[in-house]
């Protein structure tokens, strides 16, 4: 008898099966390998010894981490999707499609109707590992997550594209107090959406579907979501008991053909001896050569402390700062001189309100009970992600944006500080300081948010606490170079390093290095230490990790200061702010009230506009409530505040109005136009053109998440920008409206505004209709017209458009096209004129009223509310008027720039930046869609134009992500920086004024 053994070594687990002669399963076992790939594999194999004995075996290896093992041992390697296919053929006949989720891979195999095998792309990230990460985030085990999910009531939209995005959606939900069960199920739904979008790509998953792999085997909630989303009846959805082992089984079955028979002992030996080979991974120099070096390092950093005073012996007033961060809660109580009386730092266990309440009781008790002279808390200031929630819950005196809190703390600590880097759980923030005010603020983008919490989740997934994990890395001999892009990529790099035999210590050190490189090169974008300045203060919980600190110093080649309270700087800064406000009494609730304090959170959907924000209503014991998750002020109850002008809203209204102009009796019938990408600007042109020709123009509805969902099955490239991906939904929307013809021209060239070297559209805008044609089968059934037209050459345009259109509508005459074209150009020009006029009107209004303005510079399609997620309204809510780039770009001479200035839309950005740089009451905020390759070029240039004139540059990266938490912080930071600068300027002017010895000129200064 020859046994067949299949070994499946995935990213997280080892699975081994032994098959008998008739493919009957004699042994199966799986275990997490915690990156000890070879040891664990041998261990699991040894368990099979009892069954196999000394018989001959044929063994093959599969799985992402199995590749390396196969190479070294000489065992045959079976690609895992292929192995799954083999397994399905043998064990689950009659299956039409297979969905298999592994630790970090997702696969789909279509069997009936043409065999097709697909794996997730590199960006789509993990699945099993993703669920693990999310479980850690919710502070439950993966099994606990599953149990929670079964009690769900509602599902929140969570970005499904990649783990990092999803995390940015989940974290704020947690902080807002949303129900954990709902979040758990939403996580599973995100996995389902991702699988369907990323893998099925338009091909329908139907018939008998087998669900295989670990996550689908263990998580009932996930099974439920898949079944429901795909609309499968119970008998059509197959969740086989052996699903977990499908790859191993298929591998074993293939071993029959490919593997040489050998002794079982021989197999064991060859796996056990396979270690030691180092492959493609790259390694870095160690962090510390020896213990002495480490000790010296520790001594140096130990000197950076803040005086601490025992609260029991302290007499005087105190000020409290609460930093409710994304993953941790920090409290600091300080005395009048800034001395520390009390500190608290802990994970917020996904309910920050409870954590804060407990600590407030402790603090109040320490301050008030059993003391001769009670300490009076004169101010309480909150900051961080949960700033508003905590402030409302406990009636704190004020809330400040976290960037300002950090700056205040660092400045107190080192008055000469000129650079601050803060790496927290989810954010990286850095500020350059010049002339006592913040010169520029850089925050990480949604994409690179793999910061502190990333190391923590990773540590736990490998069976360590964050602290242990970082300690392990300190003396790694060969830290692995894991790259510096996003965490999903890091996961894969870790996988590779494990394959190459890297130990936990090497991975730990490597991860720390990645976090640091990410901060320096992605967020700060520094070339050298000189650029950062002389007095660098690093802070944030992540810097408690000595390995991270060391990496940072090594990479920078310079020593930095890490305050002993590195993780508490936000809270400390908030407390300092409270102290400097000079309040007489704090509004913070009393000890008695704290003891009776209760808090419940209820999710609800706002129905006040089409945005349908997911709100969380927090109810407190005193009957007050706090609503979070809102994007505008409406659900908070209408106070009639001044409506600030908003050109984004104006443009959207105009587009809507135009879309509503129909012509039901038109002789040529209906023609559809998808409202997205360049159509946001060209709609007036094409609407007038087609209406004049005699069409009834049907414009698709304004984007919503629902419209997006309808089309996302046919998106072939997941890394394209969100505005492009939305178009698929618009096509479906048009088809649902019953149009039989859609007009959406390809446009290499845009209108020539004469301001750049050329007037291209970007490749995605230019050619997306081609992609739609190739990927949306529905378009074959109607007249999908996507001619290449060049509106930059009017005369030729008319001829070419006519030649094209008459193929479909033979009755159209060239003279008609000429007339239509005249109307089109007129409409387009009038449109631009109207926007410019409106822009001037807004500027005039704001100047009269003394309002500040933000030029929200992006692309025409950023007007789409599903793309900008209401950022324009958020800005007006914060008290600033909103202008667009195209409303001010004409106000300056064409700019000289250091890049190839060849795209019409992008040229406007440079001009807008140059204009804003000369206006005292304007700031520029650039909207950048994730995946916009061209903005990698424009952002640097826009920043250079602004900084040349000493202005602030703020960039907001937007995607499918729906959460404005980070955006709010950025904009408030911008406001804070503007205020600081204003104050510094005023102080300087006052100084000057008093130097001039009370000359009458001084009157009015500081007004």
């Amino acid at each position, binding site marked *: 008898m020859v046994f067949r053994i299949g070994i499946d070594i995935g990213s997280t687990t080892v699975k081994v099966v032994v098959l008998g002669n008739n493919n009957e399963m004699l042994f199966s076992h799986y275990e997490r390998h915690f990156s000890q790939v070879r040891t664990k594999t041998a261990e699991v194999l040894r368990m099979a010894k009892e069954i196999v004995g000394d018989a001959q075996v044929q063994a093959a290896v599969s799985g992402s981490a199995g*590749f390396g093992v196969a190479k070294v041992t000489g065992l045959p390697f079976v690609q895992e999707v292929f192995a799954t296919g083999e397994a399905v053929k043998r064990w689950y006949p009659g299956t039409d499609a297979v969905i298999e989720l592994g630790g970090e891979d997702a696969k789909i195999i279509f069997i009936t109707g043409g065999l*097709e095998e697909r794996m997730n*792309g*590199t960006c789509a990230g993990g699945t099993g590992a993703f669920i693990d990460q999310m479980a850690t985030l919710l502070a439950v085990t993966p099994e606990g997550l599953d149990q929670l999910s079964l009690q769900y009531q509602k599902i929140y939209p969570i970005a499904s594209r990649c783990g990092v995005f999803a995390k940015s959606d989940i974290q704020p939900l947690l902080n807002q107090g949303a129900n954990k069960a709902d979040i758990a199920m939403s996580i599973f739904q995100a996995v389902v959406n991702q699988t369907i979008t990323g893998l099925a790509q338009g091909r329908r998953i139907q018939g008998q579907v087998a669900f295989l792999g670990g996550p689908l085997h263990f998580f009932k909630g996930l099974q439920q979501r898949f079944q429901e989303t795909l609309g499968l009846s119970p008998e059509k959805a197959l969740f086989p008991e052996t699903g977990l082992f499908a790859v191993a089984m298929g591998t074993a079955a293939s071993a029959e053909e490919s593997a040489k028979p050998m002794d079982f002992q021989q197999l064991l030996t060859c796996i056990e001896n396979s270690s030691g080979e180092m492959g493609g991974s790259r390694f870095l120099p160690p962090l510390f050569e020896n213990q002495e070096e480490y000790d010296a390092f520790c001594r140096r950093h130990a000197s950076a402390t803040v005086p601490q005073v025992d609260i029991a012996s302290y007499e005087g007033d105190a000020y409290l700062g609460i930093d409710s961060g994304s993953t941790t809660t920090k409290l600091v109580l300080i005395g009048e001189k800034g001395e520390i009386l009390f500190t608290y730092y802990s994970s917020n266990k996904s309910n920050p309100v409870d954590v804060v309440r407990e600590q407030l009781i402790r603090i109040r008790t320490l301050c008030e009970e059993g003391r001769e002279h009670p300490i009076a808390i004169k101010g309480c200031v909150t900051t961080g992600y949960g700033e508003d929630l905590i402030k409302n819950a406990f009636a704190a005196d004020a809330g400040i944006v976290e960037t300002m809190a950090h700056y205040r703390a660092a400045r107190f600590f080192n008055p000469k500080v000129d650079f601050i880097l803060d790496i927290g759980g989810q954010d990286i923030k850095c500020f350059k300081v010049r002339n006592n005010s913040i010169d520029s603020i850089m925050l990480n983008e949604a994409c690179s948010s793999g910061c502190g919490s990333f190391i923590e989740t990773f540590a736990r997934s490998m069976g360590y606490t964050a602290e242990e994990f970082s300690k392990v890395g300190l003396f790694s001999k060969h830290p692995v170079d894991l790259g510096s892009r996003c965490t999903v*990529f890091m996961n894969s790099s870790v996988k590779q390093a494990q394959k190459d035999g890297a130990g936990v210590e090497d991975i730990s050190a490597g991860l720390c290095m990645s976090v640091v490189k990410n901060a320096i090169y992605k967020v700060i974008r520094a070339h050298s230490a000189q650029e950062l300045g002389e007095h660098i203060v690093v802070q944030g919980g992540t810097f408690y990790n000595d390995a991270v600190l060391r990496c940072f110093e090594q990479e920078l080649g310079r020593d930095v200061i890490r305050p002993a309270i590195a993780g508490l700087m936000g809270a400390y800064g908030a407390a300092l702010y409270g102290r400097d406000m000079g309040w007489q009494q704090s509004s913070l609730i009393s000890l008695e009230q704290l003891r009776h304090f209760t808090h419940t959170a209820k999710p609800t959907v706002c129905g006040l506009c089409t945005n349908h924000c997911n709100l969380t209503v927090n109810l407190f014991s005193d009957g007050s409530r706090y609503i979070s998750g809102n994007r505008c002020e409406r659900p908070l109850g209408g106070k009639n505040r001044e409506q600030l002008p908003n050109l984004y809203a104006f443009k959207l209204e105009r587009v809507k109005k135009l879309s509503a102009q129909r012509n039901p009796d038109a002789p040529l019938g209906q023609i559809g136009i998808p409202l997205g990408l360049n159509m946001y600007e060209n709609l007036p042109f094409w609407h007038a053109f087609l209406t004049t020709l005699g069409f009834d123009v049907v414009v698709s509805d304004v984007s919503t998440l629902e419209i997006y969902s309808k089309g996302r099955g046919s998106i072939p490239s997941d890394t394209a920008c969100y505005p492009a991906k939305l178009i698929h939904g618009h096509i479906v929307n048009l088809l649902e409206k019953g149009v039989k013809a859609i007009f959406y021209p390809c446009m290499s060239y845009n209108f020539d505004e004469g301001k750049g070297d050329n007037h291209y559209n*970007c490749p995605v805008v230019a050619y997306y209709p081609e992609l739609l044609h190739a990927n949306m089968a529905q378009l074959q059934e109607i007249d999908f017209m996507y001619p290449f037209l060049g509106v930059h050459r009017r005369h030729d345009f008319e001829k070419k458009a006519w030649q094209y259109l008459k193929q479909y509508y033979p009755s159209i005459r060239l003279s008609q096209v000429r007339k239509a074209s005249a109307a089109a150009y007129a409409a387009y020009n009038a449109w631009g004129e109207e926007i410019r006029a409106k822009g001037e009107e807004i500027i005039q209004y704001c100047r009269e009223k003394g309002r500040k303005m933000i030029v929200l510079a992006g692309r025409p399609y950023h007007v789409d509310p599903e793309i900008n997620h209401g950022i324009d309204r958020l800005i007006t809510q914060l008290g600033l008027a909103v202008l667009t780039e195209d409303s001010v770009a004409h106000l300056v001479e064409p*700019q000289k*720039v250091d890049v190839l200035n060849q795209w019409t839309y992008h040229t406007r950005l440079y001009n807008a930046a140059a204009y804003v740089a000369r206006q005292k009451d304007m700031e520029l905020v650039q909207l950048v869609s994730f995946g916009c390759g061209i903005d990698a070029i424009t952002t*640097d240039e826009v920043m250079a*134009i602004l900084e040349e004139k000493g202005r602030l540059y703020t960039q907001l990266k937007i995607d499918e992500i729906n959460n404005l938490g980070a955006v709010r912080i950025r904009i408030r930071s911008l406001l804070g920086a503007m205020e600081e600068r204003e104050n510094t300027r005023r102080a300087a002017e006052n100084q000057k004024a008093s130097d001039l010895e009370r000359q009458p000129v001084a009157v009015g200064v500081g007004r």
Partner: protein
Amino acid sequence: MAMKQNNSVQSARVPVAQFTPEMKKTHTILIPMMLPIHFEMIEHVLRKNGYRTELLRNEGSNIATEGLKNVHNDTCYPALLVIGQMMDALHSGKYDPHKIAFMITQTGGGCRASNYIYLLRKALVKSGYGYIPVVAINFAALGNDSESGFQITIPMLYEIAHSIVMGDMLMCLHNQCRPYELHPGDTDRVTNKWIGEINRILDGKASTLAHRLLACYPQIVKDYDNIHRAKERKIRVGVVGEIYVKYSPLGNNNLERFLISEGAEPVVPGLMDFMLYCVYNGIEDQQLYGGSRKKTIGSQLLYRYLVGKQRQVIKAIRKQGSFNPPGCFADTLEMVEGYISKGVKMGEGWLLTAEMVELIHSGVDNIVCTQPFGCLPNHIAGKGMIRAIKEKNPEANIIAVDYDPGASEVNQQNRIKLMLATAAVREKEKKRQAKKKGNAFRLGAGFSEREWIC
């Protein structure tokens, strides 16, 4: 795609260092490597025209690191690598920074790749090397910058064009021998020998250059055919994609070597196709958007001339009979009809789709479509067209692979292995079917089909 040194370019922020005519004697122009065979000959052309040059061959993880340090991290991978390779060379201490210049190719039109030269200048200025001149090599715009001491003259262009034709020929034959060679190193030896030979021929008089090269064709094919090769037929895998990651081993983690180690034969379409694509786009633009036809006469002549060159190579390989000739651009042009419009002209544009279709038509069903992560044109012409290609050619077995400084090799290789596993099964199936019919199975079917096309 003409890149004018327009007045609106260059603010005072980034001063431009000129490559003065005097520098021709004093400065070494460093050229980043892309295609090892072709670039050696192109470099030779520059040298014989009086420039001091050196091809950058530095490798290692530091290149990507330097790229990340010096270029916006969301810029495409080729920019990171090319600029990273230059910065790495600068920091190696091997060169006197006051005695070097950098060369960078400029292609892409509406694609952001057209901005590489500006990104390089910015990176140099930021690192304190603003005085190092950068020269652009751009075939579509001759003598673009009259002040520059670096001029691609018509005779030089003529020689470069021939280097590309020869490079394509050697690469095509090399790839068909290397996986099968019985004595490791034989193929490299033949290739190196011919690079040397061709360089010598390039040194001769320009007027007889074409003739002298053509005379070598039979001997080149024969030399490759004389390499002792295994008789087995391996799975042929086409490599298409963004030009840099498609060709450069640095960009695609040594894809060709990996494919060979996995028992496959790489099939890589030539560089001349890309040149022809650029030339053709000028003609297509006039047809799509209007304008004077006269202005495209030059392009049309050049187009016809270069296609003729390609045909000569194909003819020589076919005549000898041992190897599959490369595709001819004129056919590729026709094959893409019905898939994507030829108006898609940014980056590799329609050519990318066309190359996939061309490969399938010539019997190479297995294709790796390579692109930098987030490559804009490839969203459309690469990944965006795979579905349509598979629909019309059910035998197509295409895998799209993204390249990026953070992307792990394991992930990339795993996906390529999936494609290879599928290929192996299909190959087996084909053999079984063929046996059933009692016909001897012949690999490279479609070969005969090609004959009447070209």
